[in-house]
């Protein structure tokens, strides 16, 4: 179908009906396994193929129109849809172009695992065995397996433009979520990745079980003012929101006012886009189809570049860097233990293991989250807490944060377009107000 689409578009271009086109194809196969407790609830095979077709058209007034559609191979209406697309490209936009040939070939070694690409239901059966074995271990401790969802995926991606770009690449991924329960409580685990050996199912179940056994002792967090120690997932979320401003696209839309040379984040921090770290990323291509390359956006706490695709390089005048598809944040100099020990000299510290949900607003950078589980460290004791909430502004708190030397990865939620993160496993934030049980805080 790709050839048919390209043929139609090239014909339209030659006839002067459009000025440029781009076709991005993705073929994906995904195996899915679902357990309700120890009962195999469902097994699914999903085969899909989609084509994102975009066209540009020069308007009489000097502006350029743009329109896009996502098609499936089963669409017998594709010719009619493309005709409509050509007609739709009558929006009025400043002129920009699709990228031409890449300087270098895409390198997918960080996001492709041949074992996952070739995975079948036999591999699933092996992982089923791990789950059932973990369930037996839970039963021995009077814990109840809640659920398991495991997806193994393999994607083949291709991008072709009228300007001569023609690339293909592959990537693999897995999605694992599950829960361990008692009558009153649950611990949930969630893990994404690109390599089969990173599934580590038994490890996830064991950690959840350990936390679940502690959970009945948790009390509502006392209301007060605390320094806050965040774990990797929350640290990643704050960096995702803050670095949203480090994209030329955000400047173009009026969301970001950052310029190179300005201070960004914790003192001395370095943030790198697209580091080729194993497991950090979902594709070897940026959003325009250009092969990813690593570059610094922040060095020693100062902005050195804004991530700029071909489109936004044209629209904003910032130098082209290619898109930013993952974040690599360098660690600090002190370990979690050292950070905690030093902070406790000044007062209590609230360590958040996880929030119910932490989704900072990309525009205001404001965030707030309910504590699903945490520790309040004070006066030499460690109190297990939950409930209540902390909130603030990602840019403000990161500016005064200290990053730990330990590193961790957080793949992010692809459904929410969250960038994969590799960086400090902990961050110590300044004093923040915490809502909770009244009358017992600091």
């Amino acid at each position: 179908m790709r050839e048919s689409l390209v043929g139609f578009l090239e014909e339209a271009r030659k006839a002067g009906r459009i000025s440029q086109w781009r076709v991005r194809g993705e073929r994906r196969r995904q195996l899915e396994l679902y357990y309700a407790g120890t009962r195999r609830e469902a097994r699914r095979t999903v085969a899909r193929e989609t084509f994102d077709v975009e066209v540009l058209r020069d308007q009489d007034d000097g502006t350029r129109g743009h329109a896009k559609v996502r098609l499936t191979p089963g669409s017998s209406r594709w010719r009619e849809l493309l005709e409509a697309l050509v007609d739709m490209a009558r929006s009025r936009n400043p002129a920009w172009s699709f990228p031409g040939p890449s300087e270098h070939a895409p390198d997918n070694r960080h996001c492709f695992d041949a074992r996952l690409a070739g995975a079948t239901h036999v591999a699933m059966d092996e992982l089923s065995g791990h789950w059932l074995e973990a369930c037996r271990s839970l039963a021995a401790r009077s814990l109840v397996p809640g659920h398991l969802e495991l997806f193994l995926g393999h994607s083949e991606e291709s991008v072709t433009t009228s300007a001569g770009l023609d690339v293909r690449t592959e990537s693999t991924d897995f999605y694992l979520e599950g829960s361990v329960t008692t009558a009153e409580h649950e611990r949930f685990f969630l893990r994404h990745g690109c390599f089969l050996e990173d599934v580590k199912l038994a490890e996830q179940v064991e950690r959840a079980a350990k936390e679940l056994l502690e959970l009945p002792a948790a009390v509502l967090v006392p209301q007060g003012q605390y320094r806050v120690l965040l774990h990797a997932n929350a640290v990643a979320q704050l960096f995702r929101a803050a670095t949203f401003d480090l994209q030329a696209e955000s400047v173009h839309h009026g969301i970001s006012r950052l310029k190179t040379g300005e201070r960004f984040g914790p003192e001395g921090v370095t943030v790198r886009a697209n580091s080729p770290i194993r497991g950090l990323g979902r594709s070897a291509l940026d959003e325009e189809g250009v092969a990813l390359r690593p570059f610094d956006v922040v060095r020693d706490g100062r902005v050195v570049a804004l991530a700029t695709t071909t489109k936004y390089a044209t629209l904003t005048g910032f130098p082209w860097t290619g898109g930013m598809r993952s974040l690599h944040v360098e660690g600090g100099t002190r370990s979690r233990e050292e950070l905690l020990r030093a902070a406790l000299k000044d007062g209590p510290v609230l360590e958040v293991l996880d929030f119910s949900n932490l989704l900072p607003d990309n525009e205001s950078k404001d965030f707030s989250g309910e504590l699903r589980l945490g520790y309040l460290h004070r006066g030499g004791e460690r109190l297990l807490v939950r409930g209540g909430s902390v909130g603030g502004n990602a840019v403000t708190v990161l500016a005064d944060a200290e990053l730990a030397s330990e590193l961790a990865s957080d793949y992010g939620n692809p459904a929410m377009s969250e960038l994969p993160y590799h960086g400090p496993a902990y961050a110590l934030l300044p004093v923040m107000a915490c809502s909770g049980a009244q009358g017992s805080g600091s």
Partner: protein
Amino acid sequence: MGPDEPFAPPRLVRSSVPWNDVDRAARAGIRELEARFPHLRASVLVQECDGLTIDKEAAEERIVAGAPFPAEFTGSSFVLSVTNGSAVVEWASDDLGLLERGFEELRPELESLPATGMALDGEPCSADFAVDVREPLHEVPLQRKLERLRADFERAGQLAPKAQRVVTAYRETQVVELFVSSNRRMRQQLSRVTRAVYILVPGVGGRLVQARAGRDVQGGFEQAAIHPYTWRQLEQALDQVPRAEPLTPGEYDVIVDGEWAGLIAHEAFGHGSESDMLEKNRARAVNYLGKTLGSPLVELRDSAAEPGRSGSFFFDHLGTLATATPIIQKGVLSRPISARGSGEGLGFRPSSNGRRQSPLHKAYVRMTNTDIVPGESRLEDMVAAVKYGFYLRMPLGGMEDPKGWGIQCQGSVALEIQDGRFTGKCFGPVILTGYLPELLSSVRMVGRDFESDGMGYCGKGYKEFVKTTCGGPAMLLRARLG
């Protein structure tokens, strides 16, 4: 319609699917499969999506042809589903040409599904449904849509001369779905329109904050004008959000507006009563059916049978006709929402809550339109009853905790109330947390005016997005704010 009567061409979608051919192929495949495996029941769901997204802002006009989020593409997809009543095996693709191959590929896997002795057949049904539409969306020229959007952009810009960014958004979604099993053959045409305005303005402390308002309803282009209610909401947001200051955390008397009440309904015992969560020991409510969990003023329901609301449909993705479910009645948890194959073990007939993001996704028990039912109180009387507290407006989102019975709901604005009057001060952003039975038991007054803008989605945690709505009246309660 009769069991063999052909389907007429869809009116609400410019369709490319040969529905009668697909219907015949699906029925033949099911018949053959059930003859070979008499203890199993098969079904086929076919979905075709189309639509349009246009965003207009000063820097750019974006036009995307095709169904907007949470749909994943323009075109058709299908899922073949086979069950023994306990386990399900499925094969899904976005290439309708692979329907027959799907039956072949499934066959070897079915050997592993033993007979369970469970009842698998429902009542027969053959029907062709469609949402009531005056102007089908695909019949309206693009130019007319663009002109309307550009005019709305001008009007929105005049409301906020200092805006950093103004976006006016137009979304249309058209869906045709066919469900076929050995005794059911149903098709539905759904059509809805979303209009919204987002304005980015400087807020307290120099950060940028967003004032927004929108509406999402079923229908055709006759629903495409931005509603006067939406413009009023936007003007209020532009007045309140930029001057909102940080709130001192604490427990307060709180009046939530109708949209907030809906969000609480959704996160509280919407998610907390999903039968698949109950069956997996993931929701505490399983031990509280028939027990009091809130004030007798609290009535909570979920209903897919609400004509015009964008979470409505005629049948769910497992072939159950649209139902209304009273979840909490007079403060008592009465029954879960459920789906075919989930909930029967708890002794409940399936409700129409078996939904998929698309045929490429698994079906789960999902909400539709989830509301707090209006009561008798007037908003003025609620405000007068508050010594010191806040009126929460403009909710943003939340997260469920069906096992721990915690709740997290966030919003943009809390208006201060002192001695029964608004002081004029605004606070925000605001997060509401609490322990659900305490929160619902603290409800002292329930308003009489229902609000629901129809915006929003549900992700069932993190990854499965379906269109839902929620709403309700204002409620006076006690809550922890941060």
